[in-house]
């Protein structure tokens, strides 16, 4: 049999995932956002190499040293010191560790919960869909901050608990987005074909559906990452999040609030870091959404 419709195919086949990455790399906000996020992650990991100060060591003789750009600042404490004489730059670097750790861990938990629920609701439909929708609705009626506050206030705060509480609260958007993405796929003929060749339900969910909803999944993950970092900051600000001697950006803002009028940089520095991180994460998320939405190309 001859092949009139034969086309010249590229010698190296790029997977749709790789093609998306290639398109992303040509996207300006992907670069800008990605660079900032990566820089913050590196700074957090390499904190001990960047500064010799310990973020928890107090030196009451060195309290409230202003940052280096003011008259009384010194290069020894680049961003000055806080009310207990702890190096502010070291606290910022080590604080990034906790903020990012909480952000990524909670997204892993909430992403797993939300994706599992969303895929099941979207694929099975019927009763499963009704029950899961009901659970989503209940979750949406719960005010996140309030619930987190109550749990932390009752049980006491620890890093693990914080991750668990935030992770168990922020899965709703994953579930909603994944559910509708799955519904759109569930009636594609390749899903029916997969069933017809005898695939198990697991195989259909993991090999046919999941790989095809990674686009929206990554976008939601970026939104929820930013959300979790902010939520941790809010809880820490209210004194119910990270507990000393651990430090997070939210806790830094909280501890500095009495200095708002006298030493505004103490709030401005961790605040700006938070804003920068959230902004960069959103840039990456936007870029990924831009590059993955033209699904017609796949």
């Amino acid at each position: 049999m001859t092949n009139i419709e034969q086309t010249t195919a590229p010698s190296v086949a790029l997977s749709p995932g790789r093609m998306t990455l290639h398109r992303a790399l040509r996207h300006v906000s992907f670069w800008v956002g990605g660079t900032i996020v990566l820089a913050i992650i590196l700074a957090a990991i390499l904190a001990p190499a960047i500064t010799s100060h310990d973020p928890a060591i107090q030196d009451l003789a060195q309290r409230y040293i202003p940052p280096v750009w003011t008259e009384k600042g010194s290069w020894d404490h680049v961003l000055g010191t806080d009310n207990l004489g702890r190096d502010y730059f070291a606290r910022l670097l080590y604080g990034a560790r906790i903020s990012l750790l909480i952000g990524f861990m909670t997204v892993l938990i909430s992403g797993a919960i939300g994706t599992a629920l969303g895929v099941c609701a979207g694929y099975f439909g019927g009763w499963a869909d009704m029950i899961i929708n009901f659970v989503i609705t209940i979750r949406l009626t719960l005010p996140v901050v309030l619930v987190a506050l109550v749990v932390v206030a009752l049980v006491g705060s620890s890093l693990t608990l914080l991750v668990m509480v935030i992770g168990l609260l922020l899965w709703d958007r994953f579930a909603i987005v994944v559910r509708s993405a799955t519904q759109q796929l569930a009636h594609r003929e390749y899903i029916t074909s997969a069933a017809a060749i005898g695939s198990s339900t697991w195989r259909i969910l993991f090999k046919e559906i999941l790989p095809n909803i990674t686009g929206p999944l990554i976008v939601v993950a970026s939104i929820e990452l930013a959300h979790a970092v902010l939520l941790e900051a809010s809880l820490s600000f209210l004194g119910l999040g990270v507990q000393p001697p651990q430090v997070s950006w939210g806790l830094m803002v909280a501890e500095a609030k009495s200095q708002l009028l006298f030493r505004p940089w103490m709030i401005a520095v961790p605040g700006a870091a938070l804003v920068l991180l959230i902004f960069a994460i959103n840039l990456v998320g936007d870029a990924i959404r831009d590059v993955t939405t033209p699904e017609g190309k796949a």
Partner: protein
Amino acid sequence: MMDDVLVMQGVTRDYPVGGAFAKKRTLRALRGIDLTVSRGRTLGLVGESGCGKSTLAKVLLGVEEATSGTVLVDGHPIESYGRIERAKLIQPVFQDPYSSLNPRMTVASIIGAPLQVRGEGTGDSRRKRVEEVAGEVGLPRHLIGAYPSQLSGGQRQRVAIARALIGEPKILICDEPTSALDVSVQSQILNLLHRLKQELNLTMILISHNLAVVHHLADEVAVMYLGRIVEHGPSQAIFDRAHHPYSSALLKAVLPPRPGSRLPELGLEAEFPSPLNPPSGCPFHPRCSNDDGTTCHEIDPEPSGTSHTYRCHHPDNFTQTAAQDQAPAD
């Protein structure tokens, strides 16, 4: 012939429609299907969009369950097979090659998936088999590692056919395998199906809304209207002497328009009725030229005839060849 591979008896399929707030209603997509296909035969299944052809295919494939009635595949009820056993027996080729292939999988893994699912063979032996089948369906070798987005419509449909055939099924169900393709590619795919059917002694159901497509391949033709079979007989008998006015109307639409003339129309005035609310009596009467105004409105015709069956009170009995119909009306 007693070797009936596919048997459907009084098969119905209902879909619940209406949301959480709207009134719940049932859409009866199949309304009592009786159909038998013998081994090695090709049945052409034709009918308008929405008459239930794809639903019938899905019930036969076991991906949708019949609401009532029996479906026998190779002598046993379809529910009695496990999903793998069923897959070994019966395979589909779908209409839209742009949505029937997972965009995230390579051609090789798509074609090899049935073997992988069954855990048959090693990676190496599977790859060999994939290349073999790809060759059989005329898929260029260098496309084995490509992704579906890099393939043309015709090539994609060859991949879908290869996936269906790699496990050597006995029955192939093709749901409009060419209607999403270019005219030039359509005949290639049809010829391919024709050759494979003979080489592999496949029993085939070929679904189409186009009688011309069916004409090449089918040994017998079943005409479907509003969820049931209204006429079924040997291909030549249907094309030469269709008894049901609906079949006659479909046949008219096959005739190629003369240059400059309008495209042929079905000659059916009223719209295709809603399956939610089927007409009384003979469901075809609102569109029928033979409608008598009484019996047709009240009594649902039972199937008549033996080898060539039809459901009609006033069948077109005269010899109705294509040539006669071609006489221009204008």
